[in-house]
């Protein structure tokens, strides 16, 4: 119990809430990296996934890329990103971590958007075509909204994965909440270590729950339907 009391003491210490190593700064860094990685991954993966889903092409590849992504250990991706970042002159910290996070986030977004479009009832798609919609309109106004819950599921997996893995960025001198964990380990300051772990865990669980709410909302819209 005494240990948890000293962790509470760590959180209560005003010095840990300000400056470049303060909790708000670290959370902001963590979220900044996560947001940029997921957005870039989505810009790459969503169009490919939706297009392949619409045409039904390359199904094997689209479905299995998620499993392939799982086989690559995140520490290994970060390790591979480091020499690339050096070769590009981007150095340590933010950019090698970013380069490791994007390939981590692409597979679940791509696979889910593919599956989402494929799962839309074919009769509905035919009806949309019968109403004179063009292929792009079918994809945009029928398949994407109906597939929204599954697409959001992919974004959810990707975001939570990136939040979790971005902690490793501290190993290559990046910021974010991983700093507390890596520094806490190195300095054997277990309060800092524990506090960092609690913060990352809360951030991940909070994101998971937030996306859950979004998914439910999109499912509601998808079933009830909106007036045009």
């Amino acid at each position, binding site marked *: 119990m005494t*240990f948890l009391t000293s962790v509470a003491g760590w959180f209560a210490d005003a010095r840990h809430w300000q400056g470049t190593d303060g909790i708000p700064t670290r959370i902001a860094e963590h979220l900044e990296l996560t947001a940029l990685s997921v957005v870039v991954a989505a810009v790459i993966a969503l169009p490919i996934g939706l297009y392949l889903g619409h045409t039904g092409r390359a199904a094997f590849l689209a479905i299995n890329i998620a*499993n392939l992504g*799982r*086989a*690559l*250990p*995140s*520490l*290994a991706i*970060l*390790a*591979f990103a*480091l*020499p690339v970042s*050096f070769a590009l002159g981007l150095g340590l910290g933010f950019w090698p971590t970013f380069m490791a996070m994007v390939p981590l986030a692409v597979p679940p977004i791509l696979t889910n958007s593919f599956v989402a479009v494929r799962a839309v009832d074919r009769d509905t798609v035919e009806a949309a075509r019968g109403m004179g919609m063009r292929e792009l309109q079918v994809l945009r106004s029928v398949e994407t909204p109906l597939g929204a819950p599954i697409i959001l599921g992919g974004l959810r997996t990707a975001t*939570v994965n990136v*939040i*979790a*893995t971005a*902690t*490793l960025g501290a*190993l*290559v001198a990046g910021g974010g909440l*991983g700093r507390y*964990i*890596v520094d*806490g*380990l190195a300095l054997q300051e*277990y309060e800092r*270590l*524990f506090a*960092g*772990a*609690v913060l*990352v*865990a809360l951030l*991940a*669980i909070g994101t*998971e729950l937030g996306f859950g709410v979004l998914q439910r909302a999109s499912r509601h819209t998808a079933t009830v339907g909106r007036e045009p």
Partner: protein
Amino acid sequence: MTPGEPLIRWDWVASHATEIATRVGEHVELAAIAVFVGFVIAFLVSLLVLRFGRLEQAATFLTGTLYTIPSLALFALLVPYTGLTILTAEIGLVGYTLLILMRNIVGGVRGVPAEVTEAARGMGLTRAQILWRVELPLALPVIVAGLRIATITTIGLVTVTALIGQGGLGYLILLGIQLFFSTPLIVGAALSVALAVAADGALVLAQRKLTPWTKGARALPHAGLPPGT
């Protein structure tokens, strides 16, 4: 990473062959213990869930929350209590296998067509006999599918335990990052991926041997019945 330095220095690989082999051994050991213990726990919990359906929500919530906690954070949360030990690594690694395994064991058994269990009941089999002789064998493809995901994930996660003084091949990756020396980094990462691919292949082969009736039909719960049932 230093300009002019080759990405892999094969002389380093040759002179460290014994160490690399030891790290591969550690890696396999850490992953194997985790998947084995995880499977035993997930199997027992799944039997309870299948017997008492009300437990499912609680079990899914617990294992789901555990699964959401970032790996490095989970290890970090344990270090103050269990230290930089193999126990810390294994608690975390086992924790991550539970959700995947449980979902597939429970889902696999539930996916067995009702007509089949009805027929078994009609033949006079008891509840336990139906579970062990009919449902579990038929659920095997789905269970192995879960085992494959759990194994691949675990082999990848083992590298992270290098940060708490374990890690197998993760040790080489960390060494490479700390020394700015790409050779151990690439060797560690490549071997870790190779281990995952090899373990996955081994499980696929094992499943084909165990469930010859699914040949060509791929891990679907309704993919046909054993001849003679």
